């Protein structure tokens, strides 16, 4: 049985092979359209990858890639033995995790809530107001945040003082314990509206007859949300979740760089990307920066595959 089936499959493959070129030229007009795209990806995404060689060299900018001496896994070892390594990994996972935990479901909830709003004018207004912050750069958002939270003349301190909740000003941005809350809430404020657009669109595509049928059967609005809306948009939620998990090591960069850039906050704000920027690029240690980048990329691919594998077992996967 085993031998026979092997022969059969290899025959099939051989047949397919033979016809490959024929089939290829048979659809040459279509292939012509694909080739530029493939070339583009090859040239701009694959060729530059040879740069990862730097991670295994003591890259010397004057000698270039060909002249630099090999360093083996030295740079990786250096990163793993850096006294800040554990702290950086913890911050990366915690900040990222908090963002997934809070900033991922929030837009879904917003979309579900907006879907229940019957007044179109109000719905549109809320949508517009919530998605506008997405277009502000982090420099501006961080500027807002800093002036709201500052001690001399910061509005939050003034409000809290006026209503008698606190006695003296609190320097919010100088207390490490508050930092994660601040960073996650500013991210939430900035991203919630824009992220919800996709879900709103998905919800709009749900077959209205399902709701009518459910209503006839006596399902309440809540039941309809949980039994019709959410299951209908589940594939989209899962796909976004997989992408989000693949991004787990991208805990954010500009936000942390601007808001968390003080020595007192470094122990809670330093993530892989800010560390690479400061230590690697900032002081010209390109090999070191590349090694950390490669390490991050490998873990991200692993996470993405893992998330996709789990999702595939439930029938909704990216590939």
């Amino acid at each position, binding site marked *: 049985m085993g031998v026979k089936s092997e022969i059969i499959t290899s025959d099939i493959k051989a047949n397919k*092979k033979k016809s490959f070129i024929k089939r290829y030229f048979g659809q040459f007009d279509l292939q012509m359209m694909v080739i530029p795209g493939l070339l583009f990806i090859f040239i701009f995404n694959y060729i530059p990858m040879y740069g990862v060689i730097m991670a295994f060299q*003591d890259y010397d*900018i004057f000698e270039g890639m060909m002249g630099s001496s090999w360093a083996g896994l030295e740079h990786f070892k250096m990163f793993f033995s850096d006294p800040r390594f554990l702290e950086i990994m913890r911050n990366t996972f915690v900040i990222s995790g908090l963002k997934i935990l809070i900033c991922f479901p929030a837009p879904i909830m917003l979309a579900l809530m907006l879907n229940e709003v019957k007044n179109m004018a109000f719905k549109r207004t809320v949508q517009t107001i919530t998605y506008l912050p997405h277009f502000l750069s982090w420099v501006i958002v961080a500027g807002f945040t800093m002036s709201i939270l500052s*001690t001399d003349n910061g509005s939050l301190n003034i409000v809290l003082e006026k209503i008698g909740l606190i006695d*003296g000003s609190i320097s919010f941005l*100088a207390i490490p314990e508050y930092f994660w809350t601040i960073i996650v809430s500013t991210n939430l404020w900035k991203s919630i509206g824009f992220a919800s657009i996709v879900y709103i669109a998905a919800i709009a595509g749900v077959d209205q007859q399902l709701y009518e049928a459910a209503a006839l059967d006596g399902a309440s609005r809540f039941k309809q949300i949980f039994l019709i809306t959410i299951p209908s948009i589940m594939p989209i939620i899962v796909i976004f979740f997989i992408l989000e998990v693949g991004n787990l090591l991208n805990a954010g960069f500009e936000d942390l760089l601007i808001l968390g850039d*003080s*020595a007192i906050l470094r122990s809670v704000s330093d993530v892989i990307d800010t560390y690479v920027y400061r230590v690697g690029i*900032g002081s*010209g240690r390109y090999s070191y920066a590349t090694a950390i980048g490669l390490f991050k990329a490998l873990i991200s691919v692993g996470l993405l595959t893992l998330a996709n594998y789990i999702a595939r077992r439930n029938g909704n996967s990216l590939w």
Partner: protein
Amino acid sequence: MRKKSIHWYLLLVFLLTVGIVAGCSDSDTTESVEEEKNDSETNDEAGEEDELFVFGEETLEISMFGNYDWYTMPGWGDDVATAWIKENKKVDITAIDGGGNAEQKLTTMIAGDELPDFIWTDRGASVERLREGGALVPLDPYLDKYTNLRDWFGEEGINMLRSDDGKLYQFPNWYNSSPFGNAGYVVNKGIYEDLGSPPLETTEDLYEYLQLVKENYPDVIPFETGIDGQGINVLYSAFAEGESPANINNVAVPNGDQLTSIFMDENYTESLQYVSKLFREGLITQDALTQDQDMVIEKVTAGNIAVFASASPTDHARTGHYDLLEEDPDGGYFMIHPIHKEGLDPNEVYPGSYNMMGWNVSVITKGAEDPEKVFAFLDWLTGPEGQSSLIFGPEGEYWDGFDEEGFPQFTEKYYEDPEGLAKVEEDTANFQWNGNSNFLDTAKANFEESLPEEHRNWTTHWQNTITWDTQYDATQYLNISPIPESEEGIIQQRVGEVFEEARAKAVYAQSDEEVEQIMEEAETAAQDVGYQQLLEFQTEKWQENLAIVAGE
């Protein structure tokens, strides 16, 4: 199966070809070797020819790169001073812009082998990296032909600037042999006199005064520290007799002939305990470590502070002084002699430091077609004619000719039109690549002395009476930092982070004991990443410097 693998082989071959082509196009080792040869040939020729390059006879085009994120060169010839140079000396300068990310731009230029004629950058690591990569032209052959640098900077200074191979690559900026610098304490005169002008000499006096300010002026910030908490570093000097905040920048304290841990330094710990006490009691601005320059300027120019200490408080206090004078003729700012801890010698307190090498340097690269001409230009610019034209404008306006000592003779317009004069200097600020402090300070001081006191410039007045006498000569600590990629460089970066964090934590500490504890923890953390090795490296460099300064 076989056919299939042929496909893959083809792909592999193709990939490799592309890889090799891409890789080879990047390597320009052969080219640069040739260029090096060419350059050294021209160098030799230049050395043999004794003809001096004279400006104005032929047009000289020079390209430059300012290795600072903030640096954008204004158009050469857009202001009166450079327009005059461009027209009369036929020198035209174009800048390569860093686009806000100088490091990256410089790296791109190095990798692409497209270096400009000269690069304006910080001394130390960035220069060493270029030199080790063989990108710089030694300046020694030209020193005797064009002599302004040697005349004004001196042989000792040149020796201090020499690299490990014994050659000089760097052209200094704002070099000086006499003390300079503005670090110290500025006091708000209106508030001070209103509170009965209490003595302000010791740290105790300061503490009591700040408390008094807080009670009487709840909206005024008693002690302003400038950006990055500079004033906190200034306060260190009050506790460390014969030392200066340069120790803080070095993260090392001299002890006999060794540089030792700053975390174990009692003076530093004591100064942080003092700062932390002031901070806890709301006597120091609560944004000390987080504020930006704009916030500081606003407070200082509005007179919203009682005492202001920083590395150069005069910059904004000068503007503030004249603003405050308009509101109240008895107000304004004045400077006090540096604060000291009770029992220390007040004459041995240095709130700031200077070094003879000045601020930064220009280096001429192998990208320069004729390095000699570039050097000739830089040398001319740092000489009397160049400096006078650049700072005081073209001859005939604010100055006319030189006196017998070689300093410009100022015209009446010089003091009749201070705004116009200030504009010339301001407009050329970003062309001042090799300012000659010796020359300018002497020229200005000679002139100031001839003026009645009320006409003297506020900054110049306090420089002459207080700040210049209280700056520490830190030339001995020059270039004691390792290259970032080296083992010690990595340690330095890590120790630097430990230090920064410890300093910030100490400021926010709740008690003196906590400050001590923070310092102890920082010491352990720093030693764990190799602090001792760094200190030994720095000690060695420091001892070498001391030997040079001593003239060995």
